[in-house]
């Protein structure tokens, strides 16, 4: 079983690594990181961890989901539409192995882009800071790879769910927009509706954090905040529910990976090609 999964993963990797999109976005990772670090150095703020949180992460949060969704949305539906899937399915393999192989292949490409892009940029900018902490930066890279895999597995789910590339890309854009832009607004709306003013005046309720942490992107940013020990200006560590930890946030990321993957497997297993 392992062997066929790896053969599929390798092919998926080779196919995507040549994608011009992946080269473009890796270069974008490097340039944007260096540029943002330089801007930060000339600002009134200070501190390496704060730089990661306020300058680099907000962009990463937008770019990595786009990268993963764009690479993955067509990986299954495109092959079905073109016709090569029927040949793949008649090989001595299973549908589970095909989906796993594709996820591993996609994840490796994303990992490569992140590690090369942010890794080289990180090394470069670490010379500009007095308090450069490569361990913290490493944790940021690991978390970024994880969120990349979460979105890769979401993109696979969309790819097995929709029968046409065009609808799959529409759904990918929707999910990206919903998770990056809409989710916290929705949580704010829910809190404002169900929590009374008096409770709100005593501080941010736990429910706010719990609901937000259902969003993998929120879990990602919180995990980095907690490992770099920096928060943004309006949320303090003391506001977080007592059970919040970087480990829990990483667990949430793994949970989403698994949820998307399992649903994708169940759908694909039943589908007629």
């Amino acid at each position: 079983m392992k062997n066929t999964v790896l053969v599929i993963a390798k092919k998926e990797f080779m196919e995507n690594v040549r994608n011009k999109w992946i080269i473009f976005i890796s270069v974008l990772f490097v340039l944007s990181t260096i540029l943002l670090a330089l801007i930060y150095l000339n600002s009134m703020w200070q501190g390496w961890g704060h730089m990661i949180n306020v300058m680099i992460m907000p962009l990463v949060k937008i770019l990595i989901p786009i990268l993963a969704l764009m690479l993955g949305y067509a990986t299954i539906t495109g092959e079905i539409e073109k016709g090569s899937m029927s040949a793949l399915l008649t090989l001595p393999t299973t549908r589970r192995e095909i989906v796993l192989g594709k996820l591993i292949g996609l994840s490796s490409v994303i990992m490569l882009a992140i590690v090369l892009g942010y890794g080289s940029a990180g090394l470069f900018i670490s010379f500009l800071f007095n308090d450069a902490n490569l361990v913290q930066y490493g944790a940021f890279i690991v978390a970024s790879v994880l969120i990349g895999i979460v979105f890769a597995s979401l993109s696979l789910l969309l790819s097995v769910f929709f029968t046409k590339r065009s609808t799959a890309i529409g759904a990918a854009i929707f999910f990206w927009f919903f998770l990056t832009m809409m989710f916290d607004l929705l949580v704010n709306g829910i809190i404002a509706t169900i929590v009374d003013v008096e409770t709100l005046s005593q501080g941010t309720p736990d429910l706010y954090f719990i609901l937000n942490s259902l969003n993998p992107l929120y879990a990602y940013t919180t995990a980095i905040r907690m490992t770099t020990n920096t928060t943004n200006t309006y949320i303090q560590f003391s506001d977080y529910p007592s059970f919040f930890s970087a480990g829990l946030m990483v667990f949430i990321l793994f949970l989403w990976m698994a949820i998307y993957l399992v649903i994708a497997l169940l759908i694909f297993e039943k589908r007629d090609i």
Partner: protein
Amino acid sequence: MHSVTIRCKKCNGTLIVQGKPGEKFYITCPNCGCKGMFMFPIVEAIEIDSPESYAIEVDGLTKTYRGFTAVNKISFRVKTGEIFGFLGPNGAGKTTTMKSILDIIHADVGNIKIKGIDIRTHGKEARKLIGYMPEKVAFYDHLTALQNLSFYAEMRHIPTEDCRALIDIVGLGDTGKKPVGKFSKGMVQRLGMARAILGNPEILILDEPSSGLDPRGIALFRDIILDMKKKGAAIFLSSHILSEIQSVCDRVGIINKGVLVAQDEVSALSKKLQLMPQIIIDLETITDTIDDILKKIPGVTNVEIHGKQIIITCDSKTKTQVILAIEGAGCSIINIQTREPSLEEVFMRYTGG
């Protein structure tokens, strides 16, 4: 239970052994006491009813799409070493049946076995035995023929060197670094055949293999199919080119509106439909009475006269009588041709065309 009389190798005395095919006996000669072992031949047993003797067994296959029954209770078997042709009008359910056999499409009802292995529960094992060429042949466009084939070879644990030889066999040896995306339809089709026969599978399922091929390609495919048969493969083939089916297939199945309406050898099918061969005779001179004379011969069902050419439909046994009668009537024959009932007629009759 069989019984066989055998001779003792030592004293040449006879003894009778009873048993089943494949059963082993340790026997002692009643005359000289010489001991030996005897086994009933098992060849017969395999041919009669072992599950492995059928390459493909389809039993009661039914597939419905949102109320539309694409395939309705189809049952048939393809034997090892046999070429089974699958015919039917467009949309009759050919591709659905083929894809169900491979479990690319999940059948609603029915059992499908590949060499005795259930495709639904042991798909991976069963698919090891099958090479498939889909109706819509597609590859990874930016990879070359060799790169594409190597991927499938790796998935099947076949050495990559075999791919180069196969590419030559299908006539794509000179495509080199050209990506498959730039191939013509016929070239893609050739590569599709190479993919299907990769690793010499025991079962070959080909869905309209010759579509988009030039005559040379069609001939090449026919040779490949016959060669695979020679190697002992079972071949399940659909095609709309009836002459192609007629020339290579041992048996055919005809599907119409999701129902298998006939399955047999082509000649047996035409016999069932009472289709008769035609004799076309060109004459130097023709007499007026010939029409009546011929019609009176028992076994002749139709006589058509076009100038100096007579077309007679009759059963094969009557042919000689017809020719003698024509000569007896004083006509001299220039040329005789016989035309066997074609698969096309069989096809038209069964599919209500």
